[in-house]
């Protein structure tokens, strides 16, 4: 047997070092574990500061002993390589492990074991843990704001329909695939806009929407029998004619009088709220800010001085001010700029303000992509005789946009995270609803639960978005 040297471990006495080290490490973790989960201090006979630091010292010595290079044990080598490369790293690793063990019991008991979810009043929340009953009772408000309970199916239905329409791209046939970009950039936003503004707000304009739907359905069915030569004209002319006919000639009076088609209840935008409003606002801002930003970025690189300086001015202005002042402007200053009798809905004003604000950021991101393209791409496109628009649509933008996917995704994430700010104009999305619920005299003192709930929701949404953008980036990555 070789001489044991505990300061300098080596491979010759591998087992001795290994067993001693593992026992020490396990012992130290066991002490902390007992202390935190069962509140038992088995080393309390030692003086205060020693018993406090003992697990750390034991674990440290243990990790030092098992730090053996090329031990030919796979697990040991991987531990040494990943968490135990030197004394400092071993110390930090131990601290992290202990911190996790220490913080698990209070977190678990707050989230699960001492929490209440049963019942439907605050009285059941007697434990020291979270009161999920509060979330359960207020769930509808957090999701739909002040939207009437009986009408909430409209929001659900629109979101489900829009989600379904959004996934069409995955099921599209080869023939339809080349129109996908057009569909997502033009058709889908328009459909979504009509859905939300007419279906969710309801009221008299809902009739317009339902006539539009009937006209669209009829024209699509007939459209199958029209020769493809005329399809383009057909789909522009027929739906509009049908719509006008339906509205003004055939049905208008009769349907209302007969009560066959009852109008949906009118819900003003002030009553919208909760997570659904977060989705609505971020969805529309996403749709609007992208084209505006695209045009601003092209304008900034334009050869026309007026357009160029106008774009620079727009971009620098919106990027220079905080969003909250923009919203202030839209709520207190903007009405001054409109004629007395003209009124623009609060939600619309907010959507315009946020879209312009985020468009400036999108513009700068896209400009980065445009600048990254080599000049040769422009020259090649021009030498093929392409004009400005053809060159950009066919050659420049597809390459530039591919480059800036991460940047655009970050801007969109920032947009989603900025939506709670609309509380400035009095619209209450989920964070605003939380603050409202918090001040309800019957439910005082549950702020923590609410914020944790909203944080988890936002984390899931934003994390999923960022992962999705990462996938997109990988998918469109091309070697240059």
């Amino acid at each position: 047997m070789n001489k044991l040297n505990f300061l300098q471990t080596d491979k010759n006495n591998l087992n001795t070092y290994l067993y001693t080290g593992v026992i020490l490490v396990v012992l130290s973790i066991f002490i902390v574990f007992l202390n935190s989960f069962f509140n038992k201090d088995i080393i309390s006979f030692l003086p205060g500061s020693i018993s406090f630091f003992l697990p750390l010292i034991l674990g440290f010595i243990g990790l030092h002993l098992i730090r053996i290079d090329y031990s030919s044990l796979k697990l040991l080598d991987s531990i040494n390589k990943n968490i135990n490369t030197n004394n400092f790293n071993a110390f930090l690793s131990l601290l992290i492990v202990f911190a996790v063990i220490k913080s698990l019991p209070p977190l678990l008991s707050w989230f699960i074991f001492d929490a209440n979810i049963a019942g439907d009043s605050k009285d059941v929340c007697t434990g020291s843990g979270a009161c999920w009953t509060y979330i359960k009772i207020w769930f509808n408000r957090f999701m739909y704001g002040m939207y009437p309970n009986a009408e909430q199916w409209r929001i659900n239905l629109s979101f489900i329909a829009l989600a379904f329409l959004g996934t069409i791209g995955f099921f599209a046939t080869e023939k339809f695939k080349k129109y996908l970009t057009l569909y997502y950039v033009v058709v889908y936003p328009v459909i979504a806009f009509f859905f939300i503004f007419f279906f969710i707000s309801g009221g008299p304009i809902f009739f317009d929407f339902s006539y539009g739907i009937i006209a669209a359905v009829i024209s699509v069915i007939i459209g199958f029998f029209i020769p493809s030569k005329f399809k383009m004209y057909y789909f522009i002319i027929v739906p509009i004619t049908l719509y006008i006919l339906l509205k003004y000639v055939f049905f208008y009076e009769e349907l209302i009088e007969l009560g066959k088609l009852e109008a949906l209840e009118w819900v003003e935008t002030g009553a919208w709220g909760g997570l659904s409003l977060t989705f609505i606002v971020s969805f529309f801002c996403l749709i609007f800010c992208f084209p505006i930003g695209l045009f601003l970025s092209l304008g900034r690189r334009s050869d026309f001085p007026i357009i160029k300086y106008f774009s620079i001015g727009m971009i620098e202005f919106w990027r220079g001010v905080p969003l909250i002042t923009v919203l202030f402007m839209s709520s207190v200053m903007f009405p001054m700029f409109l004629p007395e009798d003209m009124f623009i809905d609060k939600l619309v004003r907010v959507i315009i303000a946020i879209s312009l604000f985020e468009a400036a950021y999108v513009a700068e991101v896209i400009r980065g992509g445009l600048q990254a393209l080599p000049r040769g791409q422009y020259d090649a496109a021009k030498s093929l005789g392409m004009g400005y628009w053809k060159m950009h649509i066919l050659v420049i933008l597809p390459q530039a946009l591919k480059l800036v996917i991460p940047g655009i995704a970050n801007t969109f994430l920032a947009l989603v995270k900025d939506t709670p700010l609309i509380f400035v104009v009095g619209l209450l999305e989920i964070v605003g609803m939380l603050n409202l619920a918090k001040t309800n005299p019957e439910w005082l003192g549950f702020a923590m639960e609410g914020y944790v709930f909203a944080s988890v929701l936002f984390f899931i949404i934003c994390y999923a978005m960022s992962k999705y953008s990462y996938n997109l980036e990988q998918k469109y990555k091309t070697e240059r």
Partner: protein
Amino acid sequence: MNIKKILPQLLTLLVVILIFGFFSYNAQVNMENRGITFGYGFLSQESSFDVQFSLIEFDGSHSYFRAYLVGLLNTILVSVIGIIFATIIGVVVGIARLSNNYLINRTAGVYVEFFRNIPLLLQIFFWYFAALRALPLPQDTEPMFGVFFLTIKGFFVPAFVWNNLDIFIYSIIAAIISIIFIKIYARKKQENEGIQTPVLSISIGLLIILPLLSFLFGGVDASVEVPVIKQLSQSGFTYEGGIKLPPELISLALALSLYTATFIAECVRAGVQGVSKGQKEAAASIGLTPNQVLKLVVMPQALRIIIPPTTNQYLNLTKNSSLAAAIAYPDLVLVFAGTALMQTGRAIEIVSITMFTYLSLSISISIFMNWYNKKIAIKEK
């Protein structure tokens, strides 16, 4: 010049002029109807409102302009605090993310993913309404290190009471100026003779010795004023003396620095990873010590990548500090665009001043950054 070039420009100009004309016409009509005249004269009027927390003396008898200054100073205060802490946390986390220790790496990663994916406003609310509300009342507070009191009413820290503070400040300025000269001298000496001067230890020594001299000979004197508990009413207690940091300031600074630190951490990581391995190997192969490699080769190149986006983050933090309005921390937006606007009703003037303040700040920083980027850009042959 052909028509194809002029027409789009003319159209843009026309649309812009039309929109602005429409807006300003309406604004004139509206203001006439309400009997307001446009102008910035109201700034010198008496403000007649009070601000909870201000760095300069302020009450109702001061002017609206002073209210603006109060708001601006509070914004600057919270931004500076936020920037300092965000930088410290960001650099530490960014380096931790580069660690080859799996646990440290993952912990830093979880921190970044978690805090950057939650809206800042939600974080501010969380700290203000949930976390800081769980603190004890002033009379139940256990002091930290005997002198710090973290209570539900704010964070009470001891204050320094200075005599001849100006001499002390002069001594520090003198130390800094002499350090700059020593640095220039050391560089010259190295370029000419190749001898290195221990600049760091000399500068630390200067920074300690000169202020110390001002204590011994300049008549500078500092005493510490510890907060003392004081009874206001039967159950109302507070602390007197020292400095009181209101909970609004703490939660805002905390949320801002934790949120911005995640972005700074990513900048730092990208910067250090951006220095190619060959640079380090080349530096080591010409015989530089590991410290010299870090100081002379890696850091200058990494900083070139790190500084521009980090400055951007500082700017974002400053702009985000306007969320203070949500928890009633009296910053520029709350004091000026909130209270003052409600009192005077001068929406256009006040919103324009507020926006102009932020705008001039960010444009001056971006001009500076453009200059800096040009200066540090690698000059290729």
